[in-house]
């Protein structure tokens, strides 16, 4: 699968070539990290974020109409899309 399909972005051939060119330069820049001789074993974390859990409670959202109004296609209160399967 190519990276454009993976990201679900369809672009024209000309734009694709330009983007590929940019990616090559940027990935070369990212490769700086491969050479980094930093000996760090742990992944990033913030010590002050404790990761506490809470109950997952349902709260009614009062402004459903405002959400419905943003639907690009709708039928009554349903969101209308193309067939997925």
């Amino acid at each position: 699968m190519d990276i454009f399909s993976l990201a679900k972005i369809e672009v024209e051939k000309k734009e694709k070539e330009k983007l590929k060119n940019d990616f090559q330069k940027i990935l070369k820049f990212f490769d700086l990290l491969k050479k980094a001789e930093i000996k760090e074993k742990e992944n990033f974390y913030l010590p002050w974020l404790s990761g506490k859990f809470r109950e997952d409670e349902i709260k009614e959202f009062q402004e459903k109409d405002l959400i419905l109004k943003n639907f690009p296609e709708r039928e009554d209160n349903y969101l209308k899309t193309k067939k997925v399967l």
Partner: protein
Amino acid sequence: MMRIKDLHFLYKKKELSPREFLKDLLEKIKKEDKEYHSFLFLTEKLALSLAKEAEKEILKGDFHPLCGVPLSVKDNILIKGEKCTAGSKILEDYTASYDATVIKKIKEKKGVILGKTNLDEFAMGSSTENSGFFVTKNPWDKTKVPGGSSGGSATAVAKEFCLYSLASDTGGSIRQPSSFCNVFGLKPTYGTVSRFGLISMASSLDQIGAIANSVEDLEFVFEVISGKDPLDETTVDFSFKKEKVFSLKGLKFAFLKEAFEKEVDEEIKKKFNDFLEKIKKEGAQIKEVSFESFHYALPCYYIIMTAEASANLARYDGERFGKKFSGLDFFEEISKTRGKYLGKEVKRRIILGSFVLSKGYFEDYYLKAQKIRNFIRKEFEKTLQEFDFLLMPTSPILPFKIGERINDPLLMYLCDIFTVPLNLSGFCGISMPSSRGKKISPGIQIIGGSFKEGKVFAVGKILETLI
């Protein structure tokens, strides 16, 4: 230049009313902003109703410093019933269905929200040239960029269209435009200000902060917008306390050695050095520090940011909100919608993010970046345990010409070398001008440890008297 305290005093003495002041500002914006394009749109009805409410509060006597104070809001923060475009064509017709927590808090204090400001699309950029609508101009030189991504907010504050602006900072998006427009900008500690209702770019880096015309004004705003929010699980129990610092004597400042590297503009080096001399004269202890991680911060940032952005921006598919391009089947429709309505830089970052997270590359890019990020955090932590503050320039370059860097993404990314380390580490900092006035001058960052906003404001107020 009008400060929050000055306006509060005028309201108190009944020499001006919020509605009168709002009317003056709206006239000024309509007349002058045609040249700068700092606002995407005004929210006049909302502003008028908030100004009326502010007047009622003022009549009662005891009112908050932010009551009746006009502000602008970067257009990636939701205000119920108002459009929110994030600077993107894909959200051109989107209307927010709820208030961001910061907006709720400002409304409670009767702040007068008068409009939404321009930004790089989805806050991705360092010049506001990536806006899907138009380019904002630098307030002190219209041929140059105002910085970004909060270029609209910084220009609006510099031109005194409002007293402050609420904005977001993911890799410098508050501090860098503040520096380019010669105003003050705050990036708070990660977790102090709720991100609920902020259109997410990279969730582990995004923070809402403010742009204003003085350190004290930033403090007034931070005091109101900070605090635990049940709607954002990454916020912490934090209640802001003002601190006092009476002199720089005995305070320990570290400054970054890399500020004097050859890639940094000569004028910036000179002004930064002058600043160090000034504080030394005032009795501050200063010492050079060097970060082993410094040159890894930028690629590390761009890997993590694109990875998180690719996930966050998956929601812009044209199905539930936003613009939609009709295709033959469901997935084709989504790919076409995203291809057509997302801008170049946004597409670039989503695709790069998908790549660094993909099988076979994840370990080399994303996981390596996570480890380096932790190392950066530890280096910051160590420095800020040893010193009270860390100083560095805000940007390695001065405002550049519109169009000069836009076709070279890497050249644009290099604008962020001094700002991204703070987002990677989570600590707080402000950018302030090195010299006051209606002109371009290099910005200086004053960085403090986690939750040290009080200390940063206190020392910032002293430093402000030296510029």
